[in-house]
Structures are given as C-alpha cells and as structure tokens.
C-alpha cells in the first residue's frame, strides 16, 4: 500500500487556482519533498492531505484511507506541523508537549524513543515559555509536538522558512533520523538546496508539478552542458554572457554564473579567451554538475515555451 496517493487533485480560492490536477504517489518510509516558491500550491496540497481542506476535484488517500471520508482515522495517524509556529506561546515547553500528547490520547513516555534525539536539545529549557525560545528551538519543539502520538506519516509545511542555514541543516538531520525509524515524511520548502536531502521531490510552480523524480535523476536529466563562469566585474559579465551567441541561458549563482551552452560549438577554453578579450579579470570557466535550482529554472523556461 502506498503511504500517499494523490489523483488529479485541484483546488481554487475564488478565481485563483491554487492546485491544478496534481497527481503523485509516496512510498512507505519515503522522505518526499514539495519544492517551490510561495504560491506554488505547497501549503494547499499539504492541508488537503492533512484533511484540513477539501479538494474541489480529484482524490487523495493517506495510508489507503480516503482524505475526505476517513478524515478522523487519518488525523489519528498523521503528524502535522503547520507553516506558522502553532504552539502556545504562553505555555512552557513541557506543558505544550504534555498538552499535545493528551489531546492525542498519548503520553510523552510512549513516544519518547521517537523524540528523544530532538527533545534532549530542548530539555534544558523545558520550563521556559515557548514564546521565549529562539527560532530554531521553536521548530524543534513543534516537531516534537507533531511526533508525540507516534504518527506513521508526518506532514511538514515549510519548517525551515526564515530559519538560518545552521538551524536548517540541523532540522534536516533530524528528519533524516526520523526517516531511519520508518516514518513517511512529506515536507515542503522554498529552498532548492534542501531538495538533495529528499528521496524524491516534486518541483512545483503555480499549482502544478514541473517534475516528480529523485533529485539525482532530475539533475541527470538536465538537457544542456552547464558551465560555471567567473570573472570581474561579475554583473557586466552576466550581461555579456547573455549576449553571447553560444550561450542558451545564464544566471547568477553566488560567486559564479551558471551558463548553459551549446557545447558542440564552443569549449571552455574558447569562452575563457573570448572573455579575456572583453577585458575581464580573473576569468575562470569550468564544467559543473547542475544543481536542483538550475534544473528548476530550466524546467520553468521549458514550461513557458
């Protein structure tokens, strides 16, 4: 049985179509990522799966249970962490945990093995009010609360948005260890670099899925040769690269520009020479493996054409 099966699900808010015929399946124990910017439909999709929202059309099942008809049964076996911090700021860490345990008819002791890795990090602050915790701590507590009833499936809506890179990495480490314990996890994020931490991802844009694959396959399927190009000044370089006849696309990527080229017509050395003639300093051109973000932008462009 699939952990999750989504069939042609659509949903609109008034005139805005938030989800357009989305279909995919998630295996038991899989860590599945919904990757895309704001407005891609991630939150709507997760809410439908968490039985908080009804789809306009299409059908979704969670652990074989119908998301509409069997919503009570589903609620008992899924853990859900909403996008906003959804704990009681005026209750302490411990009180929040006990409260969420009690409403699921569970106790902290029963699920301690599941949360102990995370809970140990916030245990020193257990009598502190949740509102007084730092951002990273709040996320950890929220995750503990979502796990308190030993769910077999975990839905996380943008758990790392607005969180600094260090806390983000820690959070993904926690998800990895939960996955080891056999929990199926569906997580949404706008950060493309986090895609690599997932088993499979759905790249989403404006309510639809551009691609559903393993991150490795998505990268393998990148249709062009990709070069990283450096040279000072960088901004002028970007504009000149876009004007170059053998360049398909060029985007700034941190300290270098990522350039898709017609490699049958030009070599890295030739481009380097071309740029040196245009007065660029410290020119360096080398072939690189695309990132998920490169693929996302490529797929977006393909989609628009």
């Amino acid at each position, binding site marked *: 049985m699939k952990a999750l099966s989504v069939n042609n699900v659509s949903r609109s808010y008034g005139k805005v179509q938030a989800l357009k015929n989305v279909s995919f399946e998630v295996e038991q124990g899989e860590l599945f990522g919904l990757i895309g910017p*704001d407005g891609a439909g991630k939150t709507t999709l997760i809410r439908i799966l968490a039985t908080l929202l009804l789809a306009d059309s299409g059908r979704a099942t969670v652990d074989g249970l119908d998301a509409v008809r069997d919503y009570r049964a589903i609620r008992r076996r899924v853990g859900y962490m909403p996008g906003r911090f959804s704990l009681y700021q005026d209750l302490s860490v411990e009180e929040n945990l006990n409260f969420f345990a009690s409403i699921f008819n569970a106790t902290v002791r029963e699920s301690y093995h599941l949360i102990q890795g995370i809970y140990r990090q916030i245990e020193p602050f257990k009598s502190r009010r949740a509102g007084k915790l730092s951002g990273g701590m709040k996320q950890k507590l929220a995750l503990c609360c979502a796990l308190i009833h030993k769910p077999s499936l975990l839905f996380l809506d943008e758990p790392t948005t607005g969180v600094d890179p*260090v806390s983000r990495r820690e959070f993904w480490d926690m998800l990895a260890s939960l996955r080891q314990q056999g929990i199926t996890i569906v997580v949404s994020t706008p*950060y493309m670099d986090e895609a690599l931490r997932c088993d499979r991802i759905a790249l989403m844009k404006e309510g639809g899925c551009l691609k559903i694959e393993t991150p490795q396959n998505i990268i393998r399927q990148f249709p062009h040769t990709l070069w990283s190009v450096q040279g000072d000044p960088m901004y002028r370089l970007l504009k000149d690269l876009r004007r170059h006849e053998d360049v398909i696309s060029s985007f700034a990527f941190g300290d270098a520009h990522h350039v898709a080229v017609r490699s049958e017509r030009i070599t890295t050395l030739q481009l380097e020479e071309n740029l040196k003639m245009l007065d660029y300093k410290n020119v360096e051109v080398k072939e690189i493996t695309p990132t998920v973000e490169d693929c*996302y932008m490529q797929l977006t*462009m393909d989609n628009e054409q």
Partner: protein
Amino acid sequence: MSAFAIYAENLTKCFGSFTAVNSISFSVEAGEIFGFLGANGAGKTTAMRMLCGLSKPTSGAGVVAGYDVAREPEKVKQSIGYMSQKFSLYEDLKVWENIRLFAGIYGMRGKHIASKTEQTLAHLGFEAERNTLVKALPLGWKQKLAFSVAIFHEPKVVFLDEPTGGVDPATRRRFWEMIYQAAERGITVFVTTHYMDEAEYCNRVSIMVDGRIEALDTPKNLRQQYSAPNMDGVFQRLAR
C-alpha cells in the same frame, strides 16, 4: 568618516540585562552592496533598526547618509529607503497609488512623481498593471515593485530585510539584477538574507553571532580565510 554611506562605531543595544547588539563597528562605502548575515536571534534586526533611526542605541555611534542615527533620526529616515519581506506595500491599494503614497511620504513633488512613475513602470514592464491592486500581483512582482518604491525617492542608502524570501529562483535573480542596477547608480545597498548564494552577490559580507560581528570581508576572502567551498560553509563554520 562622512565619506561612508554607513558608519557604525561600537554600536550597542541592550534590552534590560540582555545585550542584543554588542559593540559592532563597520563602515560601508557609497554604492557598495553590503550583506548583513547572521543566525536567527543574532541581533541583525536590532542592528538594522538602529541604523534606520527606529531604535536609539544604548551606546556607540551610527552615521547613515551623513546623519547621526541617535541625534537626527528624522533626517536619517528621509535619506534611506526600506523594504522588508513582511511589510512593503499596501495590498489593497493599486500599483500607482502605492507609488504615489510613498513618494508623497518622502516629500516628492507631484509633477516629478508623475513622470518618474511612468519611467519606473516602463522599466519594470508594469505599464499594464498600473491600476491593479497590489494583492493581485504575483509575489515576485510585488517584491520588484516594493524595491522600486523603496528607491523611488533616490535615497542614498536602501535597507533590504530578507527581500527574496519565498520568491522563485528566476525572479530572485532578476531581483538581484535590480539591486546591481541600483548600486551602479550609486545607491548603497544593505541587505539581509538567508540564501547563502545571495551572500556571494554582495561586495562585502558581515556575519553576526550573538550580537557581535564575527567576520567581515569580501565573500572570496571569507571563503579563503575559513577554507570553505562557499559562503554556506563559512556560515556553518562561524554560527555553530
């Protein structure tokens, strides 16, 4: 020291016994793109508020666009632009109404506003959206419009607080191109972000940890100094 667009010397802010910003010193040259990084709760927002004249420093000095942030906060506010992810434009006003409103707040004259509005809309390719309510625009467009509004009155310095959160990758890059264009015109850009690749776009980057600036240099030098492959590596090294 007035040659600097932003100048901070031992800038400190305490809330009771808690020191949010602990004696930070740095300077930003005119036309520079300055990345202001740090973990959540490291004191970025507090420092930025002091520099914008919104919060009085407990001690130390800050000079922005030639004005003292403690003594002349009103003049500071007049010479800066500000944009944050949370608040930037009024959703229930039309595109032109937002431009008109903010230009008016900064004391621009009606005729000047009208001609500059045309120019800005043309530059953004938004001519057809003049009468659209801001809430009907896609997020990426909103952010671009918000940035244009923030620099509409030609401020000397513009503060951007996580301007690209949640924006799709292509729009994020177009947004940075706008930042480059502004910097080329001589506007100093002070920007915070959680995207480490964006830190690389800055001329110089500072990283705050627990209220102090732990590192400040060009991205390249920082990578070398911390022998990290990218800024993400530098950040992980420092903020852990």
